[in-house]
């Protein structure tokens, strides 16, 4: 065996510590149509609860609280300190003391006065918690990466369909004008037939969460380690792992890394550019910092580390036969020809705020429409990331049948399609 091809302990353990008309802000259903003029009547409020609200979740929470029709009613977290901190934020905002706190998500999901949940747990919980919430009749805003593997991606999509759930993945760039315009140029043929879409993976290493030395576990009332692990395979308590919820078990503890972490943003935009079609079928391992994947229609999805125009983080580039566009988190876009603007103005919103994405979600909670980061789109984008990661991990090309969702004649790849959940959890 070529030792250099092995996923060694350092990378296997390292994931847990890895860093992880005018086109304006998206049009939403006018408030007047929803009865939102002035003070929001109780019947029009969306009662939101949070599950696992750490640093990222607190940002999301702020976006929710900016919306006049949101009533944040409850928080569930395995950490007492987080429960109290989030309750404090919500109560201060609403001027009440009514935000309820839960350690066990099941109690929260049983609450009949919760319409929707914001899930910002560690990634090990994302997909499963989204499905449990949907089965409890809640709409779901879920941070990304939403799934750990291909099978979970498909189950997430199917569960949201089955339960009639409005699902919004935390891919907020879909609701930013310049990214939307770039995708629109690609989708509507303004660039000619699309030949290549580029995503930035921000690292092409396969990571897994580690197994740190066992320490005495805290009182579950303070920090519930069993609930923190949730569906992740068992590990002994370690305070560093507990603190690293953002990175814990990304990609199922096997093949996370930048392809999934950033990919669930950048690839998601690429998928939108190709009209949210099924993910690529052919995936090659990295060559010169590029993973090249091919769609059934012939276009390519390229994970590319370098050669980007400096437009900020999360850059994407869409190339067609007659033009190209590149965009990034600065809020700016660069075009192959100024004529592509055709006199249009694109509002430049840098810093990738999630406010518009949250608003899109809340409006769909009321109309039962499909938000931009819906489960179908998220499923396809995540599968593209997982399949690319499998090619990366195996170090050879893999071919995915997008009808059966099996890799063709490739048992090793197929075994990486899913992973068992720790008891008693199941998908």
């Amino acid at each position, binding site marked *: 065996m070529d030792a250099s091809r092995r*996923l060694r302990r350092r990378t296997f353990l390292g994931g847990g510590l890895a860093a992880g008309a005018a086109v304006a802000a998206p049009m939403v*259903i006018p408030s007047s149509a929803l009865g939102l003029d002035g003070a929001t009547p109780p019947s029009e409020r969306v009662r939101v609860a949070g599950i696992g609200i750490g640093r990222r979740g607190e940002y999301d929470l702020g976006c929710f609280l900016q919306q006049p029709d949101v009533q944040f009613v409850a928080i569930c977290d395995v950490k007492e300190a987080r429960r109290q901190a989030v309750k404090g934020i919500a109560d201060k905002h609403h001027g009440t003391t009514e935000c309820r706190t839960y350690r066990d998500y099941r109690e929260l999901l049983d609450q009949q006065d919760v319409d929707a949940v914001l899930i910002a747990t560690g990634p090990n919980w994302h997909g499963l918690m989204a499905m449990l919430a949907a089965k409890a009749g809640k709409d779901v805003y879920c941070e990304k990466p939403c799934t750990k593997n291909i099978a979970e991606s498909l189950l997430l999509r199917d569960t949201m369909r089955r339960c009639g759930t409005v699902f919004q993945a935390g891919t907020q760039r879909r609701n930013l004008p310049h990214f939307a315009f770039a995708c629109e140029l690609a989708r509507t043929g303004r660039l000619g037939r699309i030949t290549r879409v580029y995503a930035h993976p921000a690292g092409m290493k396969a990571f897994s969460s580690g197994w740190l030395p*066992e320490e005495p576990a805290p009182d579950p009332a303070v920090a519930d380690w069993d609930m923190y692990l949730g569906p992740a395979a068992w590990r002994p308590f370690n305070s560093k792992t507990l603190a690293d919820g953002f990175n814990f078990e990304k990609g199922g*503890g096997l093949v996370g890394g930048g392809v999934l972490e950033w990919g669930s943003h950048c690839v998601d935009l690429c998928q939108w550019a190709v009209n949210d079609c099924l993910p690529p079928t052919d995936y090659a391992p990295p060559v010169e910092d590029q993973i090249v994947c091919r769609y059934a229609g012939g276009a390519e999805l390229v994970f590319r580390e370098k050669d980007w125009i400096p437009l900020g983080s999360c850059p994407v580039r869409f190339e067609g036969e007659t033009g190209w566009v590149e965009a990034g988190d600065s809020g700016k876009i660069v075009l192959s020809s100024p004529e592509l603007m055709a006199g249009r103005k694109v509002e430049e919103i840098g810093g990738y705020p999630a406010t518009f994405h949250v608003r899109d979600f809340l409006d769909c909670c009321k109309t039962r*429409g499909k938000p931009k980061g819906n489960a179908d789109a998220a499923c396809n984008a995540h599968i593209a990331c997982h399949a690319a990661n499998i090619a990366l991990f*195996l170090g*050879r090309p893999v071919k995915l049948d997008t009808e059966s969702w099996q890799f063709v004649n490739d048992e090793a790849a197929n075994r990486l399609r899913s992973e068992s959940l720790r*008891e008693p959890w*199941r998908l």
Partner: protein
Amino acid sequence: MTRAGTNWSGWCVALLAAAVVGMGHARGETAVAPSQEQELIAVIRSETPESEKALAFKNLAIHGSPACVEAVATYLGNERLASWARITLEAIPGGEASAALRSASETLSGRLLVGAINSLGVRRDAAALPLLEKRLGDPDATIAVAAAAALGKIGTPAAAAALSKALAAGKPDRDAVAESCVVCGEHLLAAGDAPAAVKLFDAVRRADVSEQRQVEATRAVILARGKDGIPLLVELLRSPSQRLFNMGLFTARQLAAGPDRDAALAYEVDLALLKSLSGTGETTLAAQRKPLVIDLLADRNAGGAAKAVQQAILEAAASGEPALRLAAIRAIGRCGDAASADGLLGTAAGADAAVVPAIREAIATMTADGVDERMVAGLTDADASVLPLVIGLVGDRRIGAATAKVLPLVDHSDPAVRSAALAALGSIVELGDIDVLIKKAASPRDDAEAAAAATALKEAAVRMPDRDACAARIAAAIAAAGPRAGVLIETLADVGGSKALAAVATAAKSGDPSLADVSTRVLGKWMTADAAPVLLELATTDAAGPYRGRAMKGYLRIARQFALPESERAEMCQKALAAAKDPADRKAIIEILVRYPHPATLAVAKDAIAMPDISDEAKAAVTAIEAKLPPPAGGK
């Protein structure tokens, strides 16, 4: 049981990612060399730390064969490592792993038993059916519910029978069984057994289960029945339950929807939805729900609806409650054709202030063929009351072909038409016709026209591909513009480029105080550094009359804010020190030198020490700059 203890460096076994390549299994076989698998088995049978065993389980999940099952299965009863062992057992194909899980299920209890049952469900192990059916009656509800979930995943007719029986009996947890029934039904449907699936879905609908399970089953049965499910869909939309209504909206977005839809069935669904809008008496849809159904119709037909659907939506757009009307207008924008655009324009006549912008936004975003042509035609045949709206839409849709028709409208007798025409030209006019806007900006008939023309000219000028040619045309009009020349100079600043800069410089030095005022003001905000020499000249001569000081401040702004070669910046500061009289400006120059530490700026600062009024500041600057610069080569 072994423990990893605190030595995490013990987890040194690497995943065998390269096994396939390294062993030459080019076509994706998963096997590793038997000796390597035996090594991994030896690890999990040894007293090595748990962390190493966990990694071995992962490796075996990818590359293990049935040969490892027996060793792995011994951990199914290990509370710490059972979850790792099941990662392996769920992944390995063949009957051995399933048999091991079934066998363990006979002896395990509690959470570990739930885990084994879950794995049997994931593996869809039909042989586990008797075992699972038996576990449906387990006194531990978590185990019984796990068995139900596994049966749902297995999804065979026999599993369906077991679940139906449990559902009827209400054991162990009717709601959990109902959930499994729907999953099971989906498997049956996928296998082509629609009647069995529908039977299962209907059983859930009739059962005493939560409303959430009811809506899931109802959605499933509607989709499974197709055309025959339409009445049930309409029933959902009329349900007093908000949850059922919500599922109706959700399901209607899935039934015969999407690019591969059955067009005939889709039409039937649309007609039923329309009928629900127009029903009377008991069949009337609640008023607050109608806009949502209209929105749904637009979603279902995005890009183009059938004529009858469009007509019905158009009727809603023409009358009805405000919320319904607005929803219908938006819907036309998403699914209407050119004729619908005409229809919407027809409703605009006499419409209130809230409706007209909605109509404009809807038509502006329509993607149907022929809408542009309708708008162009409307310029000559539209009702006078909607002509400004049509002109506005020509601009919104950037219909350049309409320019010739819009140009004469800038002299129309109706001020609203004139204003709309100017705004539209701002969006569509080409360089060859921009003189119309220049003329209106320079010689407007009143203040309203002046404002409209100025805005339009700016809109047009900044998008001209040849900005120097555009600037030349604007510059040529300055002399005759009289008191409106300032607008032209401000527009030149927006256009930018060398021609615009030269024209503004000429205006600044024209001797006309008002031109000097506006010109030095825009030069002070110029966006490129090539304005610096112009500003220095204005700051050091009397060409701009009383605005020398403003010119110097503009010059210093460039030195302070722009990205420049440091030698060039230092030279600018040197020239500024020679010319600036205002003490505040002179101190500002020293601050610029400190802000950009460089040998060139250091030299200027040293020279400034000899200037008595700023000598102290210059000395401090020299000290500050030297502190930021690396020591000279060879120095201490």
